[in-house]
C-alpha cells in the first residue's frame, strides 16, 4: 500500500524535476558570474578556462535540454499535460527573467523586459518543447519494451512537438547564428521603443 502524501509534498514530488532544473541553472549562473574574469582566483590558467567553459556549457543543459527528463518524469508522477508543460518551460522562462534582470543595469525597465524575450530565450523554449517530445517518445518506447502491449508506443503529437521545437530552435539560434530572427526582434524593438 502506498502511503498517502500531503498535497504539498505530492506537488513537490511531481514538480521536483522542474525545480531541480531551475535550481541547477541558477546555481550555475551564480557560479559563472562569480568566477568570470578572475583567473587569479584559480590555481592555474588552465583550471580557470576549463572551469568556466564547463560551467557555461553545463548551463545549456537545464536551459535547453532538461525537458527530455522533466516532461516524462513529471507525467509519470501524475502531472497534467499543462503542469508538465509549465515544468518544462520553467527553466527557459527563468533564463529569460534572469536575462531581463541583468539587462536592467543597462536599459530602461520596459526595454529590459523586452530583452527577456530575446531569440535565445525563444530558442530555449523551442528546444525544451522539442526535448519534451523526444522525452515522451523515449519514455513511451521504454514502457512499451518493459510491458509489451498491442498498442503502438509511437506518438504523433510528441513527434510534432519535437519537430516544431527544433524548427524554432534552428530559426532562433542556429540558422546563420540566429541573425534572421535577431533582426526581426530588433525591428519589433524599434516599433515598440521608437527613438
Amino acid at each position: 500500500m502506498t502511503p498517502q502524501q500531503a498535497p504539498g509534498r505530492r506537488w513537490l514530488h511531481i514538480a521536483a524535476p522542474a525545480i531541480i532544473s531551475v535550481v541547477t541553472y541558477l546555481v550555475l549562473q551564480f557560479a559563472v558570474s562569480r568566477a568570470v574574469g578572475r583567473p587569479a582566483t584559480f590555481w592555474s590558467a588552465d583550471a580557470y578556462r576549463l572551469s568556466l567553459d564547463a560551467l557555461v556549457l553545463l548551463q545549456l543543459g537545464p536551459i535547453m535540454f532538461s525537458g527530455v527528463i522533466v516532461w516524462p518524469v513529471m507525467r509519470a508522477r501524475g502531472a497534467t499535460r499543462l503542469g508538465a508543460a509549465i515544468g518544462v518551460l520553467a527553466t527557459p522562462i527563468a533564463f529569460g527573467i534572469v536575462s531581463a534582470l541583468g539587462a536592467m543595469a543597462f536599459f530602461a525597465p520596459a526595454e529590459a523586459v523586452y530583452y527577456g524575450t530575446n531569440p535565445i530565450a525563444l530558442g530555449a523554449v523551442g528546444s525544451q518543447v522539442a526535448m519534451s517530445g523526444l522525452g515522451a517518445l523515449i519514455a513511451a518506447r521504454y514502457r512499451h519494451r518493459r510491458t509489451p502491449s498491442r498498442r503502438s508506443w509511437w506518438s504523433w503529437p510528441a513527434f510534432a512537438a519535437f519537430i516544431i521545437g527544433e524548427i524554432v530552435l534552428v530559426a532562433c539560434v542556429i540558422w546563420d547564428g540566429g541573425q534572421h530572427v535577431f533582426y526581426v526582434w530588433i525591428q519589433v524593438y524599434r516599433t515598440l521603443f521608437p527613438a
Partner: protein
Amino acid sequence: MEVTRRQILGVAASSAAALGLAGCASDAGGRPVAVPVDAAAAERSKAAGAPNLVVILSDDHRADHLGREGTVPFLQTPALDAMAASGLTFNHAYCTTSLCSPSRASFLTGQYASRHGVQNNLSAWIAGTTTVFDGLASAGYRCAYIGKWHMPGDLPDLPGVERFITFTVQEGQGRYIDCPLIIDGVETPRPGTYVTTDLTDYAIAWLAEQDPSTPFCLFLAHKAVHHEFIPPADLLGTYDDVAVTLPDEAFTFQTLLDRNVWEGTAGRLETAYRRYCETLLGLDREIGRLVTSLDDLGFASDTAVFYTSDNGYSWGEHVLTGKRWAYDDNIRLPLIARWPEGIPDPGAVREEPILNIDLAPTLLDLAAVPIPASMQGVSLVPLLRDEPVQWREEIYYEYFEDFPYQVPASRAVRTADYLYIEYDRGLPPELYDTSIDPEQLSNVADDPAYAQTRAELSALLAQLRGEYA
C-alpha cells in the same frame, strides 16, 4: 475589451512593417546625386595639384592585427605591410565611437556622433547631412562610394557621388556570399560572388573609367572583417593548425555570456578568431589588388590612399568579444596612408593621437577645399608632409546605448598615459594607468594614489564633452 476590425488590421499592418515586409514595395534609395561644380573651387584645387583620393575602410579590424606589427605571429597582411612600408603609419589612431554606424558617419562627416546624430546602430542617418563628398564634388572631384553604408534608416540618395554601390540586406550588414547590391539605386542580385572581391572589382572598374585630367575620390567600404567572419573559399582553414594565444581572462565559450552573445561569435572563440584572421587575409589580398590597379592605371604617384577601420575588436580581452567599450582593443584603429608624391619619409610611424573625424577634413585639405567649421576633426596633411604642427594631446570618446548590447552609454578621455571612463549607469568609473598597464586590466579609479589624476581627468572629460558633444 472590444477589438474592432480596424484595430486588428492596424496591428497586422504594423507587424508587417516591423517584419520589414512593408519595405518591399518602397523606394530602395541609394542613388547618386550630382552636385554642381564650383569653377573657382575646381580651379583652386587644380592649381594646388590636389591628388586623387582613395579611402579603404574595413570593419572591425583591430589595430594590432597587421602582419608587420608581429603581435599575432601567424598573421599575414603583405599588402597592408607594403602600404605601410611605402607610406605612413599612424600608431595611435582612434575612433570617436567604437561602433560601425556612428564611426562610419564620423568618417564621412568629420563630426562626433553627438553632432551627426547616428549615435548607434538604430538611430537614423539624417537626410541632407553634409558629407565630405559635397565639398569634393563641388571642387570638381568625381566621387564614388562603393561598399558598406550601414547607416540606420532608409538608404539615402547620396549627393556628390556619381557612383553609389552598397547593400541593405541584414540591416545593412550585408553578406559575405551572394550579397545583393544596390547599384546607383537599382537592386542587383550578385549570385556566386564573395563580397570583398565583388566590391573591389567594382572599385577597380570605376578607377579604370577615370580620366587622368580630373581628380577622383573613391571611398571603398568593406564588410570584412565583420562577423560572420567568412573568408574566401580558398583561404578557409589557412590558420586551422596555428596556435592561438588568448588573453589570460578569456575562455573558449565566453562567446555565450550575455555580454558577448549578440556579437555573432557564439561557439568556440578560437575558431571564430581563426576565421577572423583568414577573412583579414582575404581582405588584404583585395587591398593589394586595388593598390596594384592604381599602379597599373598610372595613378599611384598622385593618389593619396588611406586604409583604416571603423573600430577595433576584443578577442577575449576583459572577457569581451566585440567592440563597444572604450578600451584600446576597441577604439584603436589601423591607419595607414600611402601618397608617394606627398609623404617625404616612406615607412615612417607617427605617434600623435588621431581620430576618425580627422579623415574628412584631411580629404578636403588635400583637395584644397576649405574645411567647414561644422567639421570637428583636424587635417592630417601637416603630419603627412612631416611639417611642424601643434597637435591635440588627448582624445575624447563617446558611446551611446545600443539595444540589446549590454554596454552602458559612456564617455572617456584617452591621454598618452591614462584612460578614464565614465558610464551613464550600471558601472563605476574606470581609470587605467596605461604607462604601466597597457592592457587596461587594473582599474585604479579608487586607488588613493590616483585620486588627483582621476579628478583632473574627470574635469578634462567634462571640458571635452562641452567642446565636442
